[in-house]
């Protein structure tokens, strides 16, 4: 299934967001996720079903002012 992950099109097998993170090796413990412009809490990822064309954002802490 094709998804847009952090702006890049990826072909993935995972059907749930937590699985997607594993499949794409987002192994950081400190991630925030959004699906199609809506927040997905870390606790919600196992039940977060993905479908063709979904836009996924995976963010992490960075320097900021």
């Amino acid at each position: 299934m094709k998804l847009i992950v952090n702006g890049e099109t990826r072909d993935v097998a995972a059907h749930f967001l937590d699985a997607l993170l594993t499949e794409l090796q987002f192994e950081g413990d400190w991630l925030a996720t959004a699906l199609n412009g809506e927040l997905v809490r870390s606790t919600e990822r196992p039940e977060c079903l993905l479908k063709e064309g979904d836009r996924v954002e995976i963010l992490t802490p960075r320097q900021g002012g």
Partner: protein
Amino acid sequence: MLTLYGIELASHLLLGTAQYPSPAILMEAIKASGTGVATVSLRRETAGGSSGDRFWSLIRSSGVRILPNTAGCHTVKEAVLTAQMARDLFATDWIKLEVIGNHDTLQPDVFALVEAARVLTDDGFKVFPYTTDDLVVAERLIGAGCEVLMPWCAPIGSAQGPLNLHALRSLRGHFPDIPMIVDAGLGRPSHAATVMELGFDAILLNTAVAKAGDPVAMAHAFAKATEAGHAAHRAGMLEPRDVAVPSTPVIGTAVFS
């Protein structure tokens, strides 16, 4: 003692974490500044990477409180979602709300800012809005539930220092009970002292420290200047006068001629 949303802080300085020559220097600068609050952002992680983890564990080791920002957001929607992701990730309801309205000045879009502030306070956030020196905007932000304001004094990273002391003085005077943190535009310790002397409660720094020749020494210098301005405001300063007045007593002066 600085109190922000019920949290008491010993230092009147908040520090940004970007643009330092190295993580080690960032950590030393945080220490030298004596700050109790550091700002961070959220950015895309790269697949297979864990740079976020490394940065995050570094910051946490400093023991300071985290103030996530919504830097780079240009709409209410972006800002609100970024705030929500930050809360989920950092487990804090504090958010430095930035909604940029102009690419050149990086100034806030006060319309989107007030709307986003309302949405976020309704959602339980404790909002730190990056705003202008506009009184009426300040009133709207307070009306939207903000209990802290963060007016700019000059464009972000410009190091120009306070460009409109009259507006800052007026803003301070109109809302004596709202903690106000001057955010953006400070370049030198004297700038920090100047705004603290006006009665502002704290300053938020990043570029002026991170890009200094010696960021650690500069962090310490800003800390001293901030405390100096704060103390001077409380101690009661001499008003400028147009005439000179001798300091040494005139009476008893010898006459030799």
